[in-house]
């Protein structure tokens, strides 16, 4: 995949006779002005735009500024849908959610210094959740770099730990190639964000567009095909297992391997549990679905993992929110781990049968070798747990229960909406009470846990899927962090819906203070505005709901809006998320099961 050939020593230009004949992706919008036509003189900014279009990037998010003026001039009449956020962090989350919803690469463009610095949280979010994002940042003129120039920041230095790869382009002849490499790196292997820093003099420098088209990545290799012997060993272990569990993460979604997962689960007859990012990869309406596992996962998933004799992890990374106490995680299980990233294997938990490869390829091969087994006692046990400990809440009170809001949302949208979330209780309730049935339906910041992700994510998802119903299930404080982006939704006529589960607290932190800090609610309460009034002021529709009885009507009204709509649900203030595996405890040592049982 990567070229091993090198130009002679000292050559800065890595031109190739086969320039333009090495497309990274299929061009969806062929542009007659680019690749293959030798000798046409263009400038750096035009090359950036042409290369982006050639790579299929027809939608971008970004914010202008001094050193990206040449680039924005070229964007003025380019055939690109360009969304301007109100803050670069929002723009990065939008590009990220656009990528998660569409499966394409998300692109974000900012200026140097503060523009680039504001991307950091967004890039870190995308890195933790393996999302293909390409960020292009302007930089001060090459000769000023290092001089503390106006709006100068060491962008590659600052973003190196939060990107899969980054670099600065100092020669216009390297621009087209570097952008192709960025798309390739971002979207292959374990996907992730890539940043390219472009000094303004490179953007205005002239260059023949035909040069330097071929990628040069001698250190970048992706293993997609799994080792056949390892796959056979895994299949034998599955065929022998009496009590297996499939544990599925976001890797299955980024590999577009949901159908292959379903085929394996059906052919071998396996129960399936998912991580937060894995939700949607397997239809939760099926009896074999154990829903989410982990700290706030279902009791039945956690019990099943702790009692299984074989755990088949696919595209998941044994995060601490999943394993609980590592030493006692799945104590009786042999572990198969299928992942495209070799560093994920045996990082946190010892793995017995590792298979490095693309989930789609490996699951296809594995399915060929597995046999159906009924496993009646195991499924009986699971069914009993499911019956005894479903996700529940007390629906007898007249105050609005957050879980009820989500159940009602799920009912009225027939479980078909795209859901984005904030971070905290709102996110966990969304994961517990909305029923996901298809991949790319839940868009949530899992690894980094970025509060404020929900609203810009809803915008990015709506841009990617204009016809879909996109709902941000948010917390009041998560929403506070990025609510300025409501203007972006209004300006672009995006009919996103925002459901704020407003308890006035930073709810999850408050829950921990209640449980572990003797109810000392230190700094977790802030005065909130009237969200409906804010929404109306920004040109959106605002609704406030204070009684449980008004919830269905408000949701109905929200769903028919053509404008962005914010619904402020004043929920039960000290509602907790149950069950909960306290830090340092094993998965089966869940708190709150007695509370859930008492609601039965």
């Amino acid at each position: 995949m990567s070229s091993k050939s090198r130009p002679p020593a000292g050559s800065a230009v890595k031109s190739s006779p086969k320039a333009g004949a090495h497309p990274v992706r299929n061009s969806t919008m062929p542009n007659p002005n680019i690749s293959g036509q030798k000798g046409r003189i263009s400038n750096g900014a035009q090359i950036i735009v042409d290369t982006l279009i050639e790579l299929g990037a027809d939608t971008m998010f970004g914010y202008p500024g001094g050193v990206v003026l040449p680039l924005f001039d070229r964007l003025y009449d380019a055939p690109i849908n360009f969304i301007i956020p109100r803050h670069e962090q929002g723009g990065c989350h939008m590009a990220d959610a656009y990528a998660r919803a569409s499966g394409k690469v998300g692109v974000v463009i900012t200026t140097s210094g503060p523009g680039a610095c504001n991307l950091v949280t967004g890039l870190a979010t995308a890195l933790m959740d393996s999302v293909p994002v390409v960020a292009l940042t302007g930089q001060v003129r090459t000769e000023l770099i290092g001089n503390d120039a106006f709006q100068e920041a060491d962008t590659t230095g600052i973003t190196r730990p939060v990107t899969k790869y980054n670099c600065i382009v100092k020669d216009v002849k390297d621009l087209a190639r570097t952008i192709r490499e960025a798309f390739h790196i971002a979207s292959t292997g374990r996907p992730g964000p890539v940043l390219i820093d472009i000094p303004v003099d490179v953007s205005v420098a002239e260059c023949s567009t035909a040069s330097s088209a071929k990628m040069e990545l001698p250190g970048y290799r992706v293993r997609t095909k799994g080792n056949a012997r390892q796959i056979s060993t895994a299949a034998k272990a599955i065929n022998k297992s009496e009590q297996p569990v499939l544990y599925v993460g976001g890797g299955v979604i980024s590999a577009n391997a949901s159908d292959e997962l379903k085929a394996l689960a059906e052919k071998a007859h396996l129960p399936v549990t998912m991580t937060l990012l894995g939700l949607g990869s397997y239809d939760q309406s099926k009896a074999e679905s154990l829903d989410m596992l982990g700290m706030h996962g279902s009791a039945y998933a956690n019990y099943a993992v702790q009692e299984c004799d074989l755990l088949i992890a696919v595209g998941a990374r044994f995060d601490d929110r999943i394993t609980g106490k590592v030493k006692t995680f799945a104590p009786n299980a042999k572990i198969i781990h299928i992942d495209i990233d070799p560093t994920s294997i045996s990082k946190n938990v010892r793995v017995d049968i590792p298979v490095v490869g693309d989930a789609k390829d490996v699951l296809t091969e594995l399915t060929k070798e597995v046999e159906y087994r009924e496993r009646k006692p195991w499924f009986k046990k699971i069914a009993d747990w499911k019956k005894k400990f479903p996700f529940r809440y007390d629906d007898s009170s007249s105050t609005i229960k957050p879980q009820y809001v989500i159940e009602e949302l799920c009912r009225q949208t027939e479980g078909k909406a795209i859901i984005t979330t904030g971070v905290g209780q709102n996110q966990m309730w969304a994961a517990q009470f909305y029923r996901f049935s298809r991949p790319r339906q839940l868009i949530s910041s899992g690894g980094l846990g970025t509060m404020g992700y929900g609203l810009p994510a809803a915008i990015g998802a709506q841009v990617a899927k204009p016809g879909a119903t996109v709902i941000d299930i948010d917390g009041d404080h998560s929403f506070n962090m990025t609510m300025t982006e409501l203007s972006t939704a209004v300006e672009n006529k995006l009919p996103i819906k925002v459901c704020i589960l407003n308890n006035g607290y930073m709810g999850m932190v408050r829950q921990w203070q209640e449980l572990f800090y003797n109810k000392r609610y230190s700094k977790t309460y802030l005065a909130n505005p009237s969200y409906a009034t804010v929404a109306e002021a920004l040109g959106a529709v605002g609704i406030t709901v204070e009684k449980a009885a008004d919830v269905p009507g408000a949701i109905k009204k929200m769903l028919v809006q053509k404008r962005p709509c914010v619904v402020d649900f004043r929920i039960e203030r000290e509602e907790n998320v149950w069950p909960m595996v306290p830090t340092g405890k094993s998965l089966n040592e869940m708190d709150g099961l007695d509370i859930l049982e008492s609601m039965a």
Partner: protein
Amino acid sequence: MKHIISALVENKPGVLAHVAGMFAARAFNIDSLVVGRTEDPDLSRMTIVVIGDDKVVEQVRKQLAKIVPVVKVQDFAGQPVVARDLMLIAISAPPEKRPEVLSLIEMFKGKVVDIGPRFVMVEVSGPEAKIEAFIDICKPYGIKSVARTGTIAMPRQAKTDTSASNKRTEL
């Protein structure tokens, strides 16, 4: 346990920062890190000595390989290698002690590269243990300063029995 890891990297700006940053971010300990050019002007070699158990070093190796401009990673543990440090050391050697110091230098196959009224500067190379031993033996005379390169290494041609060549003492 000490592992010598050799990484062939693209000779590009930022690669050292990327590697060093990865070590810091993942809390891996670097004992020494040497970077230098290779026979190919587009490639540099980093020789990194890491201390850790097998699980840690396995992660180090995989995390290094994951860095895009890192082309190839080898862990030399368990294979016969030639590993060398280079040291410049300034030792106190007043006239009355000088013959004694010079004979020590001789024994360690060191080379006197500068000599003054009170100090001699010596170049010593060899396996790390030899360098350490030389420092220890010089201590009673007084050491003015030490500059060391850290370990570089290259595997031996695997012609002889590995276990035997592992045991071969190097001086």
